[in-house]
């Protein structure tokens, strides 16, 4: 493997008129949570290290149903076929294709066979915390405000045995128990068009792009700040699409490399021999005295984005939010560590490390950084030795590199 791992060191950054110009990028990120170690180790695992929310991927284990109730006042879903049956078939094709985008990524255990047959349900209000994954196009929800097109609500278990509604009990930490996709049904200014209907409805959002993004959340993704990533939080403008349309030859065509790497990290295939590279290191300040005094134990820069760019293609292959590490039984240690996994071997990479901004609360940037710690304040009765406090993001640095050994 010709991958060059490079060490980064931080130096103080002079801000200009109070504006920090240090750029940063957040690539793929995950919905993570910390198991409830107040529970016996048999159900909590005993470790306070964050785990990634995920679905089980055994054959037929991923169920999805969709509500065939479609809004009429206003009409928000636009199809080319206007017959009742044709409309439903066209929408169902979009759902099937969007699921196929994610199961079409090589090197993961999320396979087409992981999906149970897609089912239909007539009720408009089929979405809810019932343990059944649903997609709803005409379910009003008071969470919607102007400007909200669609969202995915993901419910995850932090201990084994947790059950939700009629769904199966969790058998793994971080198992997603219910992920429902809601499309805004009541904003007359917002419409979604199927791929065949989009060319004639340029003011509509591409249903396939938005649904593919939302399904990414349902598989455990948070948002990405890579421009061409599917998990980039902003949708393509009305009348346009994200990436390119999927095809039989390349079902994952709409995804960016960043999305693919993220999926491989979430659902790694042990048999994958291509995406086995990793780059790891620490980001530490040139002057250790610049580290925050509180909370105690911070030994490296926290809150940095580390991005791996393929030196040849320029594509963002993967990235992470660096600054911490964790080994069982936890808690997280804020030592400046980063690690980018599941990189294709045989490539050279350039690594960018950038600071977050000082005023940025970790929760703004990624839930991943906001959920690294639980303690007796957040959770009464939390074991002190497994508790921690997330430090403030260290923004006052720029990076310089020196060649690796």
């Amino acid at each position, binding site marked *: 493997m010709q991958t060059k791992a490079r060490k980064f060191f931080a130096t103080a950054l002079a801000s200009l008129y109070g504006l920090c110009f240090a750029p940063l990028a957040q690539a793929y990120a995950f919905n993570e949570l910390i198991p409830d170690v107040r529970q016996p180790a048999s159900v909590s695992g005993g470790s306070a290290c964050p785990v990634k929310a995920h679905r089980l991927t055994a054959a037929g284990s991923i169920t999805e149903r969709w509500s065939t109730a479609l809004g009429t006042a206003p009409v928000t879903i636009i199809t080319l076929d206007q017959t009742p049956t044709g409309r439903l078939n066209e929408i169902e094709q979009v759902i099937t294709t969007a699921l196929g985008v994610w199961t079409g990524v090589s090197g993961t255990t999320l396979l087409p066979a992981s999906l149970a047959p897609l089912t239909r349900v007539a009720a408009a209000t089929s979405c809810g915390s019932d343990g059944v994954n649903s997609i709803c196009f005409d379910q009003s929800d008071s969470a919607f405000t102007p400007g909200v097109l669609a969202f995915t609500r993901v419910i995850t278990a932090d201990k084994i045995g947790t059950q939700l509604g009629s769904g199966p009990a969790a058998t793994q930490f971080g198992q997603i128990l219910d992920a429902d996709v809601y499309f805004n049904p009541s904003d007359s200014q917002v419409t979604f068009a199927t791929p065949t209907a989009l060319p004639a409805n340029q003011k509509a959002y591409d249903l396939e792009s938005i649904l593919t993004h939302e399904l990414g959340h349902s598989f455990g993704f948070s948002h990405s700040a890579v*421009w061409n990533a599917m998990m980039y939080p902003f949708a393509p403008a009305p009348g346009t699409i994200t990436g390119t349309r999927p095809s039989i030859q390349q079902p994952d065509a709409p995804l960016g490399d960043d999305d693919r790497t993220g999926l491989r990290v979430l659902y790694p295939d042990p048999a994958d021999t291509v995406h086995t590279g990793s780059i790891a290191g620490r980001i530490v300040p040139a002057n250790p005295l610049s580290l925050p005094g509180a909370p105690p134990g911070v030994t490296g820069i926290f809150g940095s984005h580390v991005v791996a760019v393929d030196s040849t293609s320029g594509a963002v292959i993967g990235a992470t939010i660096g600054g911490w590490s964790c080994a069982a039984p936890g808690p997280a240690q804020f030592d400046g560590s980063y690690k980018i996994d599941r990189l294709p071997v045989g490539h050279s990479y350039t690594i960018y490390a950038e600071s977050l901004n000082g005023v940025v609360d970790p929760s703004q940037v990624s839930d991943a950084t906001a959920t690294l710690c639980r303690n007796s304040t957040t959770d009464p009765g939390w074991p002190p030795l497994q508790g921690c406090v997330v430090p403030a993001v260290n923004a006052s640095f720029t990076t310089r590199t020196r060649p690796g050994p």
Partner: protein
Amino acid sequence: MSYRQRRRFFWIMFLGGLAVVALAAALSATTLSKLRFAELAQKSTAVARLRCLSAVSRWENGEIWTETRFEVLETEKGLLPGLVSVRMLGGHVEGLHSRVEGVPVFRPGEEVYLFLWGRAGEPFSVLGWSQGTFRIAQNPETGAETVTQDSAAMPVFDPQKQHFRRDGIRNWPVVLFQEKLRGALMQRRW
């Protein structure tokens, strides 16, 4: 990385930073559609500077919701009592974590400007979620306050151009933000 590459990299960073000031791009969002600042001001029920007091998650109508209580410090639009509650989807209850990307989460003690939105008979929500959330930070040394919009917190890496760009309001001195806000509320074009 050679000296030349390093120099190029820092130039990219610097220019990317300048682009922050220059760009106010119009984007639309996947869970969110882009709301311009003037739209936020126009469509909001109320706008206020608030201090978070507490947040409680609970089951309600089959979903986990988080209700956050705020002390009203300064009202810019609408009529608000001294305390307001904001209810947003998601939270943590009894071993279950409910999460919706883009929904702002608040911590006791932090101060924010929120563009509130509410239907009659329902608790307030935050208009446009992360777009209607503007967090206030205070420089511990100088005391100077700055404002950053949640949706602007993630500068974007453009793989094709190999540089970063940012949109929205980020690190604005609070005085500038107030000026922009009051201008928008007066329906002046910014």
